[in-house]
C-alpha cells in the first residue's frame, strides 16, 4: 500500500449558514476505506457534501492528491472524485446501463458519444458490480439493492481516485449490504481507491474500515483505527446508549 495521501482534510469547518462542525482532520490513502459514524443529524452528510464540493467550506482545506480542491476545474475534479448520494437519482426512461454510461461524462467529447475506451470502462464496471443480468432493465424498476450497485458501477466507470458514499447501505437487506460492501472492499484494493463513506451499521463499519471518524454534537468525538473505536465504552458514549442495553442487544448476539 502506498503512503501517498490521496485525500486530506485539514482543519475543515463545515455547515450550512453557520459552521456546524469544526476542526475536522483526516487523511485517506489509496486503497483505504474511511468510515464516518455518529448519531442521526450529527452532520455526517454535511461533512461528505463539503468534501465533495456541494457545500461551501467554512474554513480549512481539502487536498486531493496535494492539490487544493478549489484549484481543480469541474472536469478535472470529476475525473478524480465520484459520489454516491442518498438523494435519489432521477432516471426518466433510462436503462441501468445508460445510468452507468453517464459516468463517462468527463471523458467524452462535445456530444457525449461513447468511444471504444468508454465502452470498455462501462463493461468492466458492469462486470465488477455483477449487474450484467439486469443492465438493460429500466433503472426505475429494479430493487434498492440492485440500484445501489448500478450507482456504484456509474461511480467506478468515472475512473475516480476518490469515492464518496453517503450511507450507501442504509436501505438494503442484510444480503445486499454484505454484497455491496464486499464489492466496495475489493474495489478499494484493486483500483487503489481512497474511499470515504458514512454508515449506521457499526458491525459492518468495524469490519470494512481502515480508519473511523466519529461525529457528535458538532465536533469530532474521536477518531482512530476501528480496533480503538468499536469498543463498548466508546460506542455507548457516542450514541448515548445505556451500558446494560448495549450488553443486551450487542454482546449476546455476536461477541
Amino acid at each position, binding site marked *: 500500500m502506498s503512503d501517498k495521501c490521496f485525500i486530506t482534510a485539514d482543519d475543515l469547518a463545515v455547515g450550512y449558514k453557520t459552521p456546524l462542525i469544526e476542526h475536522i482532520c483526516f487523511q485517506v490513502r489509496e486503497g483505504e476505506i474511511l468510515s464516518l459514524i455518529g448519531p442521526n443529524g450529527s452532520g455526517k452528510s454535511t461533512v461528505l457534501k463539503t468534501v465533495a464540493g456541494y457545500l461551501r467550506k467554512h474554513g480549512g482545506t481539502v487536498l486531493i492528491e496535494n492539490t487544493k480542491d478549489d484549484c481543480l476545474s469541474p*472536469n478535472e475534479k*470529476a475525473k478524480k472524485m465520484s*459520489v454516491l*448520494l442518498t*438523494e435519489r437519482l*432521477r432516471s*426518466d*426512461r433510462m436503462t441501468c446501463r445508460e445510468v452507468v454510461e*453517464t459516468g463517462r461524462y468527463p471523458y467524452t467529447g462535445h*456530444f457525449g458519444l461513447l468511444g471504444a475506451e468508454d465502452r470498455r470502462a462501462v463493461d468492466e464496471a458492469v462486470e465488477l458490480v455483477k449487474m450484467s443480468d439486469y443492465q438493460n432493465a429500466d433503472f426505475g424498476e429494479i430493487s434498492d439493492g440492485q440500484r445501489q450497485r448500478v450507482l456504484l458501477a456509474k461511480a467506478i466507470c468515472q475512473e475516480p481516485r476518490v469515492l464518496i458514499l453517503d450511507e450507501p447501505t442504509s436501505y438494503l437487506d442484510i444480503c445486499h449490504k454484505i454484497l455491496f460492501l464486499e464489492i466496495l472492499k475489493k474495489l478499494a484494493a484493486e483500483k487503489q481507491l481512497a474511499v470515504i463513506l458514512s454508515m449506521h451499521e457499526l458491525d459492518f463499519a468495524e469490519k470494512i474500515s481502515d480508519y473511523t471518524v466519529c461525529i457528535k454534537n458538532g465536533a469530532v468525538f474521536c477518531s482512530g483505527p476501528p480496533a480503538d473505536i468499536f469498543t463498548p465504552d466508546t460506542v455507548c458514549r457516542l450514541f448515548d446508549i445505556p451500558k446494560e442495553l448495549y450488553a443486551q442487544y450487542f454482546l449476546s448476539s455476536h461477541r
Partner: protein
Amino acid sequence: MKRLFLQTTPLPLRTAVFFAVFLLLTAALFCLNLFVGSANISFGEAFRVFLGRSGGTTAASILLKIRLPRTIAALLLGGALALSGYLLQTFFHNPIAGPFVLGVSSGAKLTVALVMILVISSLHTVSSVVMILAAFAGSMLSLGLVLAVSQKVQRMSMLVVCGVMIGYICSAATDFIVTFADNSEIVNLHNWSRGTFSGTTMDNVKVMTAVVLLGSVGTFLLAKPIGAYRLGESYASNLGVNVRRLRMLLILLSGLLSACVTAFAGPVSFVGIAVPHIVRTVFRTSKPMVLIPACFLGGGIFCMLCDMIARTVFAPTELSISTVTAIFGAPVVIAAMIGRKRGDGHE
C-alpha cells in the same frame, strides 16, 4: 402483434424507424398543406408554379405568398414550441412544464401587443425583430415571476396554477388593450392575440428561420450536459456540469424559442407539453440526442396538422390554432399527468 414488435425492438433500430416515420410525415404534411385549401389548385398547376413556369398567376401568388410561408411557419414555430417545452421540462425535471401553462406565452403576448400598438400608432409598421425582442422581454418577465415563486413552493402543481394565473392576468390585460386601441391598423391584432399562423409573409419567414435555427442548434449543442442534468443537479455537478450556467442557458433558449412563436403566431397552447410527451413515449428514451431533433420534427408535424384542420374543417371560416391544438394536446397532457403518477412517483 404490432405492439409486441414495438416493445421488443432494440433501441437504435426503433429510433431509426421512428425518425424515418417522422421525416415522412413532415414531408407529407408539408405538401398537403400546400395543396389543400379553399382555392382549388390542381396538382399539375401547383407543380408548374414550383418549377417557376407559371409566375404571376393567381395560383402562383396563393401558393407562394400565402400557403408556402404559412406552412413553413407552422413547421418551424411548431418545432420551436416543442423544443421550448422540452427545455422547460428539463429545467423543472417535470413533464408538465411548458411555455403556455407557465404563463410564458401570455407574458410575451402582452408585451408584443403593447409594443405593436405603441409602434404602429406612431410609425405605421413594425419590424419582426422588434416583435421578437418584445416577446422575449415578456417571456422573461413572466418566467422570472414563475421562478421567483418556485423558490417558495417546490410543488409543480402549485407552480402550474401560478403560471395559469399569470397567463390569465396577461391575457386580460392584452384583451383590454386590444379592445380600446381599435383602429384600422391593428384590426388583425385581434386574430393574432388568439393565435394563428395566417398572415405570415416571406419576410417573416426569413427572420423566424434565423431565430429558430439559432435556438434549435443552441439546444442541440447542450445535448451532453442536458443528458447529465436529467440525473438531478447533484449528480450532474459531480460529473463536471456547470449547473448554474446550464440552468440559465435552458431558460434563455426556451424563452427565445417561445418568444419567436408568440411574436409571429400569438399564443399557441399545449404543443410544448404534448409533443415532448408523445415523442418520449414513442421513442421510449430520454436521450437528448434523440429527443431534441425528434421534438422539433414532432412539433412541426403537430402544428402543420392542426393548422390544416384549423383552416379547412369549417372553411372559409378559420378556427384559431389554439382551438385545435387544445383539442388534441390537452388530453395528451392529462395522459402525461396520469402516467407520471403511475410511473416514478417521486418528485
